[in-house]
């Protein structure tokens, strides 16, 4: 197990290196550079004002030189400074955003795991009942709606029209931190974000549960006269959870990347917004840095998922 984990970590490190090269090349293919992003066409300002800045940033050096310079610093743990906000180191910028994102996505995932697994089980057990049909309808509508649209409508309804919840942000500015204040800001975006996830988990849960319920050992258990409740929770649930765990694992990894739509509508200071802003401003160091951090998280979570899988399913042996 340990050897397996080590090997996976090593492969992961190689992957990060390749990832940084790929994103570096892609970035240089985007039209315009940080200096172009800095110039506001409405303001009488000439590109010659910024020649010095371009020099300082080393943007005129050949690409491999630029990449190696970046890599050399990155290996030593220095991801450089944001270009748009030169007083902010990339690492602290990224870490200040990961917290809010993990909080938002984490809450959404918890909501959707609980709601999704429960409703998926009920649907499977009460197959083709009214409950099943209405859950299915909800699921399929949830998956079929563009996330930004439900976010806009939700924001308008709950914050502007009913005035129940704050319109965005994470904390009330100027007030001391309190958990209640945080929850107050969190509930709406997390709930909206959870809708699609819940629907997805529910569908997987339902089909995987149905499959398991048809398996011989479940039939045997039933035939032996085990109570239906125990059949479902003890025999069926554990096996039905397998594909769902994979699904959840893959979403957790991606979750670090944030949810651009919800974050942008609710003004949530997370990774998604940071990256939208960084790409708009061609803030190369920020994009490279966040790609690296997110990539590392994804790789790490994938390894963890595989290990968790082995724990749940004794048939699988890693190594």
């Amino acid at each position: 197990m340990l050897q397996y984990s080590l090997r996976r970590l090593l492969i992961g490190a190689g992957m990060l290196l390749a990832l940084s090269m790929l994103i570096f090349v892609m970035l240089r293919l985007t039209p315009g550079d940080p200096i172009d992003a800095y110039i506001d066409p409405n303001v009488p300002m000439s590109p010659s004002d910024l020649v010095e800045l371009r020099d300082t940033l080393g943007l005129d050096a050949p690409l491999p030189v630029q990449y190696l310079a970046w890599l050399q610093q990155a290996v030593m743990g220095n991801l450089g400074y944001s270009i748009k906000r030169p007083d902010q180191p990339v690492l602290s910028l990224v870490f200040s955003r990961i917290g809010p994102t993990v909080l938002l996505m984490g809450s959404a995932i918890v909501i959707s795991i609980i709601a999704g697994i429960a409703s998926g089980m009920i649907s499977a057990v009460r197959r083709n009942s009214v409950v099943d049909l209405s859950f299915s309808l909800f699921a399929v509508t949830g998956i079929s709606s563009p996330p930004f649209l439900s976010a806009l409508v939700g924001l308008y309804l709950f914050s502007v029209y009913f005035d129940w919840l704050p319109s965005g942000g994470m904390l009330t500015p100027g007030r001391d931190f309190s958990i209640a204040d945080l929850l107050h800001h969190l509930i709406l975006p997390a709930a909206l974000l959870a809708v699609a996830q819940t629907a997805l988990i529910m569908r997987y849960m339902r089909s995987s549960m149905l499959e398991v319920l048809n398996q011989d050992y479940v039939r045997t258990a039933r035939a032996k006269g085990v109570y239906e409740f125990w059949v479902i929770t003890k025999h069926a649930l554990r096996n039905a959870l397998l594909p769902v765990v994979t699904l959840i694992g893959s979403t957790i990894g991606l979750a670090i990347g944030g949810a651009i739509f919800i974050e942008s509508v609710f003004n949530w200071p997370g990774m998604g917004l940071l990256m939208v802003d960084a790409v708009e401003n061609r803030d190369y160091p920020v994009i490279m840095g966040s790609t690296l951090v997110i990539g590392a998280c994804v790789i790490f979570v994938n390894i963890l998922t595989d290990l968790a899988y082995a724990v749940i399913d004794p048939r699988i042996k890693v190594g």
Partner: protein
Amino acid sequence: MNAMSKISSAIAIAAMMATTAMPMLTAPAQAATLSGGFDVGPGGFQGNFNPLAATSGFTWLSVYFEPLVTYDEKLQKVVGLLASSYEVSADQLTYTFKLADAKWHDGKPFTAKDAKFTMGLAQNAKTGSVLAARLTAVSSVEAVDHKTLVIKLSAPSSSLMDTLTKVMMLPEHALSQIAPDQLAKNTWWSTTPIGTGPFKFTRYVTDQYVEMAANSDYRGGKPALEKVINRYFANPAAAIAALRAGEIQFTYVDSNDLGAFKNNKDFRIIEGDSFVVNYLGFNHDSPIWKDARVRQAVMYAINRDAIIQSLYGGAAKTANCAYVSEQVVPKNIEPYAYNPEKAKQLLKEAGWDQINGNKPITLLTYYTTPLAANVMAAVQAMLGQAGINVTPRAVDTPTYNSIVLNPTPDTSQFQMVYAGLQNGPDAGSINVGLNEKQIPPAGPNVARVRMPDLTKALDAALGETDAAKRDARYQEVCKVMNKDLPWGTLWVANRYGVASAKLKDFVWTPAPGGGPYQAHPEKWSIAE
């Protein structure tokens, strides 16, 4: 307070689940705190704390920093701020500033040495200063005594005072230890900056808000507010939602979002000139615009009045040259009233069928607002009626700049641009967009205007040292533009802010780049 909001959020959650219509308010903002979206919209620059690097965002920066001189609230003339008075010598080469009795937020006095130090930073491009190129005419800066600063120029400059309004004074005692090339990277800007303004920096919560507290020692009197908070918003729509929910008391608002605030007694709409002229820039490197009749046809083909009435709700002025203010627009210039027949006639005379015919012409723009999308649709339809087939293409700012500022551009990518350029308060602002000497890479004359008459008129206006004759010079610029059409000038639109009716003595104007201007933040107050 804590328990209150804990209960309120618990109820809110319960209310949400039961979906009963029980209005839950966020706890009312603390008294004497003004929250606003000061960096929302085109004049804002969220996340920038360094005035030397500021291309915009001056509305917020001037809450805690101050320049020597600033514009008055109407943006008509330059007045003293940290300079209590100033004199200009007869040869326009020596500027003498008498400094006010001001203190930094840490209690140390503000002196001419600080001013000299700041000028040095602003002139030094190594600090990341975006002002350096505009201060090249400055030959020396001397602190004659504690309260007198003398700036000498190598040649007269009509734009020096305008540039000086953007030079925010910085404390020498706090910054002199930092090497110039490390200055921009220093965390001082967003952690412990000090200025001389009416509010003191307290904290910045990364990407959420900046908080300021009243500077009770302010020389203009103790501020009426206790706190000012600048909240960051990812887009204007989020700021509008916060304003309507009562979480902030002020923000910039796009003109097509004003509907909800009109005839609403809880809000006050603040209207102002954007000082940005919108135009269709003909790419003069492309052969299709060579014939002046084609350019005239574009002007006649677009019903600017209809667009202004319907899309801008009447809140824009048609521009027949780069200017709309009376003192620089001569009488009897061609108004280019909407005349589609004349447009077709002119195109026929010019032989448009041979020049380009029905081939699509790329109309490039960096404006991505819903309003701009509607304007482009209207322009496309109107030009299409006349026989000019344009295809709008909206891109983000870096893409736009990389295409148009390229020294050897691909003409097929942008035969035409829909853009804007600042035309005031200093009328000379438009020079960079039209002067032949400013063709990229030297400057942002992206339309590649090569018109000797126009360049001559602009140079004459910029070099005019007699303020009384300056307007006449700019009238000449306007006349040449109106006749030769380097651009198809469209309009100068108004911009808007919306403030809560509870705000008193709140001064805001949609100045280009956010100002600076005399906003007197110390007088702002908020009713209970």
